[in-house]
């Protein structure tokens, strides 16, 4: 007898084989890889999460003078919609579990940028009793933007470097290679 459960399992296996493991999937990836990579790196949405002074420079970077939106960089409110987590301030021990949870909620592919001295290494408060000296102690970081506070031009430069990083590590969406 033909059951719907078997049908689902069969269609899952077929699609998995055709799209991911067989050369058909690799071929589709080969054709569309550049296009998807171009789309990803030109529409980096970061999380609307401001911690301290560098957050003001992050807000100013969206303002008319520096205007990062012409590169496709737009803040979004929900972590499920973002590609980039921009950590722009000191991380205290009270904030650490919340930040880790935010990072876990973001879908792949995702990148993390540490903006400002406080996120890189603790900044002027490195020897305080309630600080985590540097965000890369519990979250893997891709780009570091120095400065205290980092200028908006430095932030945009960091995003452009991230775009270059994404371009160099091109991966197909279907097969992941």
């Amino acid at each position, binding site marked *: 007898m033909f059951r719907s459960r078997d049908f689902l399992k069969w269609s899952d296996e077929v699609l998995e084989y055709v799209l991911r493991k067989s050369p058909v999937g690799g071929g589709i990836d080969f054709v569309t890889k550049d296009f998807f990579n171009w789309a990803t790196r030109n529409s980096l949405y970061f999380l609307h*999460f401001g911690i301290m002074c560098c957050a*003001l420079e992050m*807000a100013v970077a969206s*303002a008319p*003078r520096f205007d990062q939106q012409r590169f496709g960089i737009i803040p979004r409110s929900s972590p499920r919609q973002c590609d980039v987590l921009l950590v722009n301030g000191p991380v*205290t021990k009270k904030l650490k579990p919340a930040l880790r949870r935010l990072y876990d909620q973001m879908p792949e592919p995702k990148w993390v940028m540490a903006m400002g001295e406080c996120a890189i290494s603790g900044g*002027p408060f490195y020897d*305080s009793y309630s600080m985590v000296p540097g965000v890369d102690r519990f979250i893997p970081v891709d780009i570091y933007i120095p400065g205290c506070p980092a200028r908006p031009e430095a932030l945009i430069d960091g995003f452009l470097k991230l775009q270059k990083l994404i371009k160099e590590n091109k991966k197909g969406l279907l097969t992941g290679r």
Partner: protein
Amino acid sequence: MAEMWINMGPQHPMTHGLWNLKVKIDGETIVDAEPEVGYLHRGIEKLCEARTYPQIIPIADRLCYGSSLTWSHLYCLTVEDLMDIEVPERAEYIRVMAIEMQRIASHLMWLAAYAGDLGLAVGFTYTMRDREVFVDLLQALTGSRLTYNYPRIGGVAHDLPPDFERDTVRAVQYMEMRLKEYEDLFDGSKIFMMRNVGIGTLRKEDGINLGVTGPSLRASGVDYDLRKDMPYSVYPEMDFEVVTHEDGDCYARYRVRMDEMWESCKIIRQALQKMPKGRWRIVAPRNAPAGTGLGRVEDPRGEAVMYVVGDGTDRPYRLKIRSPIFVTVSAAPKILVGYKLADVVAIMGGLDMCIGENDR
């Protein structure tokens, strides 16, 4: 109807800064509220006991990053009170001028975030662009855009750059022209008015009892401004008015801040005219005497106080900081009760919170 607690924050586009607001709602109406702060606690008061007096000036800047000159000036005032030194007059005038410029930049930053939250995105772009004018001036004066590290114990770090007076006068004229345009823009926007008038009323007695200070209290009708009533620096020489408003709602708070920008423009002009020539800094002694020092200033957000205890060495024994927002946030439950959940943005945004000084 069932009541439930909702967590707004720490990551929420409404909260400028990192804090958590738990509201208890019954349907859409707010029944109770409880703020939860401490996500930015860096332990500054303990840090300051391990640093020498001049090393604390950049840390004092990062207390409230929206108006950082006010805090480093307050710190220098407190330590000058402890060490009992007299600052040269030119330095006082430069300090006052820079503080009023910082006040305009801080109010514009607040207005940008406020208008952007309430849906008036054009308010965000215009005010940010005009804020750049003053940030450029302060960058020419101090060398940095956001945390300036400019006042020193005994004066200011360096003198005015060339052509500064001409640029400042031009900037102030431009600002006065733009302020008129802002009033037309915001008062003519029906949605802005609807979301502000009659919302979040804070009564005078409640405000005084709960310790609210600054524009939020002056919007409820209390005529008290530290620059006029317990003046410091060269404010007795300046001629300006204290802005108050009667209603105590969000529109009144907005109005008070807009009018304060007018008064700041006046003060900048007078400071430029009256500035004498002379030294801009004296060298302060390295060790502080044993004793206490007290400094009180009018921050753009309220009344900021610092209390330092010296013990004869070159590090402070205890530095206590009173931030205006710490007390204003604790007044939030009183103001929020009875309004709808959608009004939380307008009410908490109108109180102009900068959580850096809250958590220290």
